[in-house]
């Protein structure tokens, strides 16, 4: 993993301080671009710990990101990864999964990418129960472009495009994913690192469409515009205002500005995945003619 033009000796000297996350990250790209107190780094660390816990073969993992602050994750991990276009991480991941069903495909992206511009891809992948793991880092705002209102911004919250407060009701992402048919839906904040790691570990072994939403502080834009203090103050807010309610009805987990945040594992069920359906119905219909991936194989041979 040596970047071009940098002699090996220099890299060895820099990485002398071996952080346990080093096998998972491209340490030569550190420090990352995320602001101080941003929760994305914590989420990445939780995912790395979950890989370690489950004992995943890292050669069989692919991480797909879209555009935005969280989209940078794909560039920082030392795994097969792809930084796709805005909102298209889910369709790209779908193609990846179908071309090589052995891969664990993880979409690591932000709320603006996954459910704003990529909203339709998201709901259809959930409907088909495509075998993808979706990690959505939700900071309630479009961070990278300057703090514009996002579909997850709570009512009355201030952003740079809603100077008098947001007047649109936001999406409740967990409810959306659950209603569309996701197999696994959970929500945590960046403070709940241990529970988040456990959830990631469960998600990695769960087949079907899994969705984990992580509420993270955006101290530079969301907290500053809404006068919520520093990132540490936001973490303290999470500490005082999160309610852990496993198995709660996702419809009741709306996030209200200044209100409690309901966290926990909301849905865990075993709907058949898209590939299961294909194998079952087409296999029944076509009999011996059906072979998974045959069309793709033929196309590759041509």
């Amino acid at each position, binding site marked *: 993993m040596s970047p071009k033009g940098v002699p090996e000796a220099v890299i060895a000297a820099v990485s002398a301080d071996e*952080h346990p*996350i080093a096998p998972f990250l491209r340490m030569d790209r*550190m*420090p990352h671009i995320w602001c101080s*107190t941003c929760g994305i*780094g*914590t989420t990445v660390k*939780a995912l790395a710990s979950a890989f370690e816990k489950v004992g995943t073969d890292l050669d069989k993992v692919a991480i797909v990101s879209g555009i935005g602050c969280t989209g940078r994750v794909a560039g920082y991990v030392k795994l097969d990864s792809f930084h796709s276009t805005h909102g298209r991480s889910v369709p790209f991941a779908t193609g990846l999964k179908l071309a090589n069903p052995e891969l664990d495909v993880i979409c690591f992206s932000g709320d603006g990418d996954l459910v704003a511009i990529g909203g339709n891809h998201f709901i259809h992948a959930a409907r088909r129960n495509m075998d993808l793991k979706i990690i959505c880092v939700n900071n309630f705002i479009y961070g990278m472009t300057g703090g514009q209102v996002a579909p997850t911004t709570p009512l009355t919250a201030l952003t740079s495009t809603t100077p008098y407060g947001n007047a649109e009701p936001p999406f409740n992402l967990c409810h959306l994913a659950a209603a569309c048919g996701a197999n696994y839906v959970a929500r945590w904040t960046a403070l709940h*690192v241990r529970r988040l790691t456990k959830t990631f570990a469960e998600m990695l072994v769960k087949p079907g469409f899994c969705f984990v939403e992580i509420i993270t502080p955006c101290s530079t834009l969301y907290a500053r515009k809404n006068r919520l203090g520093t990132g540490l103050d936001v*973490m303290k807010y999470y500490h005082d205002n999160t309610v852990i309610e496993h198995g709660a009805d996702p419809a009741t987990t709306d996030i209200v500005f200044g209100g409690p945040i309901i966290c926990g594992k909301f849905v865990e069920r075993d709907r058949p995945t898209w590939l299961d359906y294909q194998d079952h119905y087409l296999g029944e219909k076509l009999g011996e003619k059906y072979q998974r991936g045959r069309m793709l194989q033929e196309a590759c041979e041509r």
Partner: protein
Amino acid sequence: MRFWRTPLDADKMKIPRGELHIIVERCKGCEFCVEYCPRDVLEMSEEFNSKGYHPPKVVQPENCVNCDLCEMICPEFAIYCLTVEEESAVAEGGNNS
């Protein structure tokens, strides 16, 4: 460690010891590790790193029990904890809260 009631297996149990490593130049001074350390091992230092942030410093290294919370919560991957292999009985400690 002080107990309100000495556990029955106190003589058999060992408190793990950890050794903290702080990558000062990578720190962005968010204070999460200082705030959330359950054993108050860390404190913000007065010094600056080259980016102008105050990194944490270890003030009570003997209190660290290798719980890894600072390592988990650090968004910058700038602190980590390694296990110290040594004999330390529970009953001894006692000099901290």
